[in-house]
């Protein structure tokens, strides 16, 4: 009778299929899954299940620790490959814009409303403070941000800042890029800050509103309210909405950690975080568009009416995109 160990015979019978799986995985990981032929692609799940059953048997009958360690590592590698996400970039991008993003934004409507109100409250407060006493202005708007738009400036200077840039078109690209990266950083920050129980996010949102309100007060005092609004909202509709959404996603995380409801705190944080992740990808896209509008459109278009039209159009477009009804996904949070 064959005197080799039963577990050794077991191993010899199956070793080849394990090695085959290992080679295929290595190839798929090194390059992409597309480098495998159809047959090889189909072989992986079958080989994976065979390895998995080998692992079960080995655990029950073999005392060769090296063998079990090997099979555990191999099965885990194959598991991640077989059950990992398998959609192409194109499919992912399509489903993101068609469903996932608007859906996630829609679910956040309460937080979005809260974030918008916080921003508005900041704006109104700053507006009233600066209207009453222009010295408050420097508390809300830093000098580099003000860039000459100060309470002490003459009406003509203020008016000029609203329409500047039209004659000097160079450097617009750099300016747009700078605005985009700067604002995106702030939005990501507003999102991440939500983790600390909503408070820092709310403060950031309120501060954002304050800067706007303070500037508005300065221009409104000179009778430039409409012109200023056109200057801000041509890109501001998109940009403010993006920052508000980022803050809303942050608020949701902080809120779910503080009040997890029937879920555990961990589960609640996880759910809010994933939803927020979807919103955040979209926020970066929105800020990119806002950067383009601010850097190019605002500098090139100096007609108030046109600025207002663009602002209204973007606002309507976002509202329709996010909140139009029936998207054939259930709306439970």
């Amino acid at each position, binding site marked *: 009778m064959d005197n*080799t*160990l*039963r*577990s*050794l015979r077991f191993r010899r019978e199956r*070793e080849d299929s394990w*090695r085959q799986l290992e080679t295929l995985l290595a190839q*798929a*990981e090194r390059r992409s*899954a597309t480098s495998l032929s159809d047959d090889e692609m189909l072989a992986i799940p079958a080989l994976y*299940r065979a390895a*998995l059953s080998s692992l079960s048997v080995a*655990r*029950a*009958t*073999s*005392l*060769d*620790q*090296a*063998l*079990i*360690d*090997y099979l*555990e*590592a*191999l*099965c*885990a590698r194959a598991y*991640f*490959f077989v*059950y*990992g*996400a*398998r959609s192409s970039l194109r499919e*992912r991008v399509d489903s993101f814009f068609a469903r*996932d993003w608007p859906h996630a934004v829609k679910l956040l409507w309460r937080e979005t409303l809260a974030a918008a109100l916080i921003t508005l409250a900041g704006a109104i407060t700053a507006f009233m403070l600066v209207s009453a006493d222009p010295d408050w202005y420097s508390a809300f708007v830093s000098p580099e941000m003000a860039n000459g738009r100060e309470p002490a400036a003459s009406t003509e200077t203020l008016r000029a800042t609203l329409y500047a840039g039209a004659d000097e078109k*160079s450097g617009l*690209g*750099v300016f747009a*890029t*700078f605005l*985009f*990266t700067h604002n*995106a*950083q702030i939005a*990501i*920050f507003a*999102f*991440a*800050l939500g*983790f600390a129980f909503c408070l820092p996010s709310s403060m950031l949102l309120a501060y954002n509103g304050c800067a706007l309100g303070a500037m508005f007060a300065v221009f409104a005092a000179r009778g430039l309210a409409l012109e200023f609004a056109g200057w801000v909202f041509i890109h501001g509709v998109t940009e403010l909405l993006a920052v508000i959404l980022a803050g809303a996603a942050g608020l949701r995380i902080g809120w779910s950690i503080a009040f997890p409801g029937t879920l555990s705190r*961990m589960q609640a*944080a*996880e759910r809010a*975080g*994933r939803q*927020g*992740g979807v919103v955040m*990808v979209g926020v970066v896209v929105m800020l990119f568009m806002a950067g383009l509008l601010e850097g190019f459109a605002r500098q090139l278009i100096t007609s108030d009416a046109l600025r207002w039209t663009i602002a209204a159009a973007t606002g309507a477009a976002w509202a329709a995109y996010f909140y139009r009804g029936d998207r054939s996904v259930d709306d439970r949070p």
Partner: protein
Amino acid sequence: MSTIALETRAEPDVRALVTPEGVDLRVRLAAVSERGIALIIDLCIIVGVLIALTLAAISVLSETSFKDSSEVAQIIWLLGFFLLRNFYFTLFECGSRAATPGKRLMGLRVVARDGAALTADAVVARNAMRELELYLPMIFLISRGEEVEAWIILSGIVWCGIFVLFPLFNRDRLRAGDLIAGTWVLKTPKQTLLPDLTSDSRAPDGLFAFSLAQLDVYGVKELQVLESVLRTADAAAMAAVAERIRTKIDWNKPASETDQEFLSAYYASLRRRLEQRLLFGVRKRDKHDRT
């Protein structure tokens, strides 16, 4: 059956990952040190690319007089910095290996805690939190404003301490981003299949005939220690182990017998005996197990 195997190796960093087929893969959490090194490697890559990008931008700026190209250089630098800072981690972790180059070098990968496929939004959420955990403390370190009040510095230190040390204070070594995204970082070692110790040429059975009494002295735990001693093949360790076993089982050592031969033969016999009993449902865990 596998539950028996589980209780023999209850290690603190092993977690259950049950596949849809119902097999527990027993994955291992990455150590904090490994994740730290992976992060340092990634940061080095980021800084390296940034320096290269800056040098390239400067050389373009200084060499060309066209205004357009200098503008392009600036845009590329600004965008490059932004993308590296925010999307270096995200892009790599969205790939099929779910690991940045640093993690890949350390044999780590990001995995959804529930065992399902890792989604892009989870990766985005986990990396957006880096803003708080990594970049804020770094900015805090770099900026040394002289007019900053003491309480701001203090609260900054507390803030950074909470986020930076977060992974040290929970069972699963999650950082705040992992917590939010429902992920954790696991080891995915590239294990090679080592040869079976009983497969190489053995001395004829007549030479090493162990009695059942001699074999029933030890259990699975000792067998596995013996396996690691044989695989390491350190002469001093083998001599010491062989000596102990010979004493324990009253083995008369013939003059020609080497420690290696003796240990291999004893390992094979012990494994045969224990595996036989395993088939009858008896698992002798260690030498104290009297089943």
